[in-house]
């Protein structure tokens, strides 16, 4: 099936099988390997991306469903500088170790931060509750997100 979509600001035309989900499409057709596949059934959050401005599970959206849509991946959010401060905070706080969950964590955290204000630690935990991290124990991630929120509000 032919689809046309916008990925990180660039128009993409592609021919995909209906069963190809969005993350396989991004990784294998477009070589955008920052979106990770963990569980592939919506539990782990490693594949979190933005579709039409809202975060989604990339493994739970078919590429054909994104026809006409606007996709933003961790590569796009990095290149535009939108999350540069959040990324620096992750580094400063050791909020990553193996890095597998990090792209999804960053996109999910930014989804909360872009609404403005300084969310409580409880609200940060709740917003990230759909993203698994097996290295950090989460504490440092919450620290990094909270620090970024405070710095942006200052």
């Amino acid at each position, binding site marked *: 099936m032919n689809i046309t979509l916008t990925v990180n600001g660039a128009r993409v035309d592609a021919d995909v099988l*209906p069963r190809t989900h969005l993350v396989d499409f991004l990784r294998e057709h477009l070589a955008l390997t920052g979106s990770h596949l963990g569980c592939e059934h919506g539990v782990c959050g490693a594949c979190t991306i933005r579709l039409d401005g809202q975060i989604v599970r990339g493994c739970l959206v*078919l590429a054909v469903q994104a026809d006409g849509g606007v996709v933003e991946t961790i590569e796009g959010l990095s290149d535009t500088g939108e999350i540069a401060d959040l990324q620096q905070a992750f580094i400063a706080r050791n909020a990553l170790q193996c890095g597998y969950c990090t792209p999804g964590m960053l996109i999910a955290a930014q989804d909360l931060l872009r609404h403005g204000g300084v969310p409580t630690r409880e609200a940060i935990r709740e917003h990230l509750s759909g993203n698994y991290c097996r290295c950090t124990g989460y504490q440092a991630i919450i620290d990094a997100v909270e620090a970024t929120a405070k710095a942006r509000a200052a």
Partner: protein
Amino acid sequence: MKASAFDYVRPTTLAEAMSLLARHGGAAKLLAGGQSLLPALNLRLSAPELLIDISRLDTLRGISTTATTLRIGALSRHAEVLASPIIAAHAPLLASALAHVAHPAIRSRGTFGGSLANADPAAELPACVLALAARLIAQGPNGERSIPAQDFFTGLFATALADDEILTAVEIDLTPGAVHGFRELSRRSGDYALVGLAAHGHRQGEGFTDLRLAYFAVGTRATLAPRAAAAVMAGSLEAAAAALAQDLEPHDDLQANAATRLHLARVLLRLVVSDMSSARKDAA
């Protein structure tokens, strides 16, 4: 895992979707938000020949009210319902429940009607429509019909919808001054509940009238607990807790056995009734 191969079609009108469904019947699956269907496809628990993507049928979208009725289009996304001022005013039970449905990245895609038609026994929304005595509107080849919520959920992932019917909307009578309660117990925020309870009624003096208690994640489908509700309305929480043994058919699974589930159902009963005794009343 990867889904097995299927064909995909995206009708642009409800009539076109109906005719596709009539032509392909059981070999086809409707795709709305896909947040339950895609996992099932990826895990190969489901392998339809054709997906009929109805997600862009705008006539199935939208939340509105008349003088007496709230109407929620089947394709309204969880995030939309959760944020809707109309829902906050007229059916705040739904917003309370949706805060427990999965996570933001799933609520942005999952749909109200999709969750109901999927009829997962551990899902929140089937219990909510039972508690609200909603009517589910189905479109079939011979027109539209209205199915009372209590007749809709027929078993494990089974509903009263025929193979050639599409759930298009849910209607709920406005009940000014009502109170609601919602609680669930789960191991992790956003996980499926171990046990959950959605409740709706009116407060009268120290007690309640028109109280409906709807449990989920207890047994094969969302279930009303009429004997327990009657006992609460008669003023006895003790009798209500005891009656849950007759109202519910709790199941065993890896997370909890039936006895634990019945115990937790009683814990939730006391908590929710207590919540509702002090809850703010819904808008007029």
